[in-house]
């Protein structure tokens, strides 16, 4: 079955695709932290951050429509947070709007990072940034098998639909519960077979990887530029009162 993979634009010939993923991850995290630490009274700096994002979209050549479409999935969650903040900032309801903007900018930055970075490099970069290896392996397996399990779920659903006509909502709910149970058991059994495949290729519980990242001048230029822009925004934020 056809899936839209998270890193589908990682092979596009964009400028940001060529940057070392470690620098990109740090820059994206810094972006999210700075956006979220922006005082609500200095909302104008969010416009600068939005411009940075637009510039990055141009540099990655990821279609803006694709990023916006992907971001829609997170909107309900962000809206809930924004609604809750309405109770907190009752006197200044537009603060909730700013919280919404901050969260949305953060989500867009993360989508851009993931879309423009090959997932295997992203995981290796996380490991190099000292994220616990076991956590990186969990991400790796999750990404690898998410689509396999989705395919399995869709096949079972098709088999169910081919033998079902009508039926109450309760009936369909019960069948869905059974399907989830079947997929859970088959996933558990699949994990046993994958572990056997790992053992047969010498896995002994220790996760080993090769160090194959090398920094180039463009990575330093990117890092320096990102840092300079962030510092500039902060200076503007404090100088413009």
């Amino acid at each position: 079955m056809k899936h839209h993979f998270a890193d589908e634009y990682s092979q596009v010939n964009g400028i940001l695709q060529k940057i070392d993923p470690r620098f990109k991850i740090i820059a994206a995290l810094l972006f999210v932290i700075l956006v979220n630490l922006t005082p609500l009274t200095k909302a104008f700096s969010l416009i600068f951050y939005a411009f940075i994002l637009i510039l990055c979209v141009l540099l990655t050549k990821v279609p803006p429509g694709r990023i916006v479409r992907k971001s829609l999935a997170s909107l309900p969650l962000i809206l809930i947070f924004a609604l809750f903040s309405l109770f907190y900032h009752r006197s200044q309801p537009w603060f909730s709007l700013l919280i919404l903007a901050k969260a949305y900018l953060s989500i867009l930055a993360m989508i851009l990072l993931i879309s423009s970075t090959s997932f295997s490099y992203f995981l290796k970069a996380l490991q190099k940034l000292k994220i616990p290896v076991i956590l990186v392996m969990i991400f790796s397996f999750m990404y690898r098998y998410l689509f396999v399990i989705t395919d399995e779920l869709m096949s079972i659903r098709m088999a169910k639909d081919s033998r079902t006509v009508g039926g109450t909502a309760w009936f369909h709910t019960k069948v869905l519960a059974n399907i989830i149970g079947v997929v859970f058991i088959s996933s558990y059994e699949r994990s046993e077979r994958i572990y056997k495949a790992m053992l047969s290729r010498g896995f002994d519980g220790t996760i080993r990887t090769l160090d194959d990242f090398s920094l180039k001048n463009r990575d330093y230029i990117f890092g320096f530029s990102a840092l300079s822009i962030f510092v500039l925004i902060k200076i503007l934020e404090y100088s413009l009162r």
Partner: protein
Amino acid sequence: MSPLIEIKELSYTYPDGNLALENVSLDVEEGDCVGLIGPNGAGKSTLLLHLNGILPGQNHILIDGLEVTPDTIRQVREKVALVFQDPEHQLFMPSVYDDVAFGPINMGWSKDKVNWQVDLALQEVDMLPVKFRSSHHLSFGEKKRISLATVLSMKPKILALDEPSSNLDPKHRWELIDLLKNLNITKLIATHDLELVGILCNKVAILNRGRLKAFGPAAEILSNKDLLVSYDLAKQ
């Protein structure tokens, strides 16, 4: 000269009480290609899992003169490469490169040696152009080839394949047969594909309900229709 694989009266019972193998004895010489045939549940896959110590059996298995024990498991896994039936189980890393390099890295080889072996293995299965792609972007036939590369990169002495031609379309099946034919390595192939066995194997072993029922030259066993019929491997 002692055989490359020596299995002596191997028995194995699964934790649920199912007796999967019973007193199986088999010798495989270096350079042999042995076809393991038998109906579903005969114990073919279970036997393959014993060869590199995934399942611990009673009595002993010698691989290249080395007894399979917890102490020798590392050396044994360098010698015996297992390719599982479903490539989705064999390819568990985020990219083709990571999957093919997984075994060599676990062997503790140097970075240069790992990279060299990865390229060589991918060249052998004609899949070098997809080196940095994710496995889930590939077709089933391509995944089967990459599965083979994941073990060829470990430079094994024995290749144990579980149903290598299952679910492949005719074109990819023939490509795989040609590929295996050109691999100069000792092979054990558990399969229902008797045509593949006839082309690739010089010896055939028939397993039924965990017992070894026949073992001999492929031409002799495959031409014995009564024998094949008696184990539901051919129609009367």
